[in-house]
């Protein structure tokens, strides 16, 4: 929320982002989609290739990359106003934090 302490300033800032419309080109989107497809293929391959204990962290990393590619590029969060990022990340961060603790109370802490 610190991003919006002064309206005037903000308005300018956002207007800039907005007017600029740094929207990636179609080509850029297609390339990203290619990467996403590749990652999905890699993810799926873990089903056939046994990676042992590496599988889970690897899968989580790939998931995170895909997640942010979509959020940042497809949903323009990278190019849009910071405020949108803030709004969304508060929710996302809160969800991850709260639910991790929640699951942890069942699994690790409980005796």
């Amino acid at each position: 929320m610190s991003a919006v302490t002064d309206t005037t300033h903000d308005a300018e800032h956002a207007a800039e982002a907005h007017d600029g419309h740094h929207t990636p080109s179609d080509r850029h989107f297609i390339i990203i989609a290619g990467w996403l497809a590749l990652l999905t293929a890699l993810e799926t391959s873990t089903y056939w290739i046994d990676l042992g204990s590496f599988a889970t962290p690897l899968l989580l990393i790939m998931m995170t990359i895909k997640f942010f590619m979509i959020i940042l590029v497809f949903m323009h969060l990278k190019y849009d106003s910071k405020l949108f990022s803030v709004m969304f990340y508060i929710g996302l961060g809160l969800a991850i934090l709260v639910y991790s603790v929640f699951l942890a109370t069942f699994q690790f802490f409980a005796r």
Partner: protein
Amino acid sequence: MAIIERPATVPAFVGDASASPPALVTPTAALGAFKRPVSTTGWKSWVFTVDHKKLGLMYGAVSLFFFLVGGLEALLIRLQLAAPDNTVLSADLYNQMFTMHATTMVFLFVMPMAAAFANYFLPLQVGARDVAFPRINALGFWLFLFGGIFLNTSWVLGGAADGGWFMYSPNSSPLFSPSHGIDFWVLGLQITGIASLVGAINLIVTIINMRAPGMSLMRMPVFAWMQLVTQFLLLFAMPVITVALFLLSFQRNFGAAFFDVEKGADPLLWQHLFWIFGHPEVYIIILPSFGIISEVLPTFSRKPLFGYKFVVFSGAAIGTVGWGVWAHHMFASGLGPVSVAVFSAATMLVAIPTGVKICNWTLTLWGGKLWFTTAMNFAIGVIVLFTIGGLSGVTHASAPADTQQTDTYHIVAHFHYVIVGGAVMGLFAGFYYWWPKMFGKLLSERLGKWNFWLMFFGVNLTFAPMHILGMQGQPRRMVVWPKKLTGEGFFNLGFWNQVATVGSFTIALGVLIFVINIFVTAKKVEKAPLDPWDARTLEWMTASPPKEHNFDSIPTVHALDEFFHRKYEEVDTEDGPRLVRVKSAEQILAEEEAAGDAHIHLPSPSYWPIVLAFSLPVIAYGVIFNLMLSVVGAGIMILGLFGWVLEPSVADDSDYDPPAEGSGPSKELASIG
């Protein structure tokens, strides 16, 4: 009324009218299925309204009604507990009574009453003409109303919910609670939950995006700030309870296994989900009142809020830390010592930002010029009573101590002190403070003082003894307490239970006087002065009650407490600088009016919010009684959605009667619609 054309005689000063934004839409009647309703009088002007002020008043009226209902339920509870082994209520009825008392008070009184204030005053305080999404605002109100009615019809349709307001599983499973009460509870809360969620989005956008020029966030009134935090809490807490409610209703109505211990379910799942919502919820309950008294105290101390930034940040801190403490409701649930220790320490952290607030309010009084109006009395009452409740909260925060206190009247004492002494008294401060703004008449101060003292005294009389009762081992949610365990001497349960019952009727008397005060005031002809309290913020910089478009011209804000700074200026005298009044409210208003905006767009009324809202209880009744009804409800919903989407956002001129010759723009409604 959609577009206000001001007479052309309005002096310039006004920006070039042609540069005003192109009407955001260019509606044609052909776009929508119907023309938009345009009534400005009569019941249609209320039912189809999207005006934040009208919606605010409706929110207020309905939640006040539910306060009386919830209070009546509380009185029945207290009557039953007035004597040992009493028989006023049967066990079954008693269980329904405290469940519905809590549900009504929390979800149908405090939350919507806070929403009432938010609706009415947020746009005014930030200098906007309405909220960001007026139709969604209307949808929220109708969802709340229909949800509340739906919940309460359970009384006559087989009994209300009887599982306690946190509805622990597996007692809430159909096996253990076979009546439909809990189904009503689940679905009813689901409906009012949607209201809260859409309301939250709407108000956040309003605060962030609709501020008047110059109104930076750090110039926003504290009430707006606290509402912002509250709405964020709602935004993120409602989905959690939604999940919990869905799981429960899938179990109850479609046989899912979620809380079926036979199949290996863990009952703690519900507890976690409920309290992940439930603890932020208690701050949702209290923060609006914190906001209100942060307006009232400076006004009647005649000086700015002490440490504005600290109050704002501590509010945000409460909102943040509040997410990390939910398991303090589960200290006896068997979480394991590590979790318990962590949550115990985290809970104590919340006391710090709250303490900052208490200190700042006290320091606001310090060195002021205190004017003890009823609103001020209530605000000071809040500081005192909330501190008592907050401090007993800290005693629960210590987990080992809490294993003695939990589920006893000691807890009941804690939360009634913070809720009734904090949140409810805060709302009453708001009533007295803003009544002249909303209705143009001052509530009687004489009755107000009676109202305050009876409530203040009553709250202490009712809830202070409960600290004792709890520590003497009286658990909560018990339809009877047995004579043989009352004990003897000063701390015997019998005496203190009676005191609590007497206290509850004292509160009721206070509330009754408030209701009388409303009627007395309504009869009064005398108008309130424009600025009766010498107030500080923007909502007072307009007529009382405000015109439909709030401000004749959107004010430009230069400082925190803008209105005050327009009225007063510092003048150097022999003995140092002195604040002197340079303008009256009337003068400021006249200036604003003279510089009024030429072309004001206001949102037009709409049929669809009420239609859409109506579909949900229909679906819900269907889930309980007959799925065919749900299909009908879904039909209404689809109809509502399409009507909504296709509706032009401003009523077409042809929806209005053509203006009479020479009479200027018409406000008459057309015969259709």
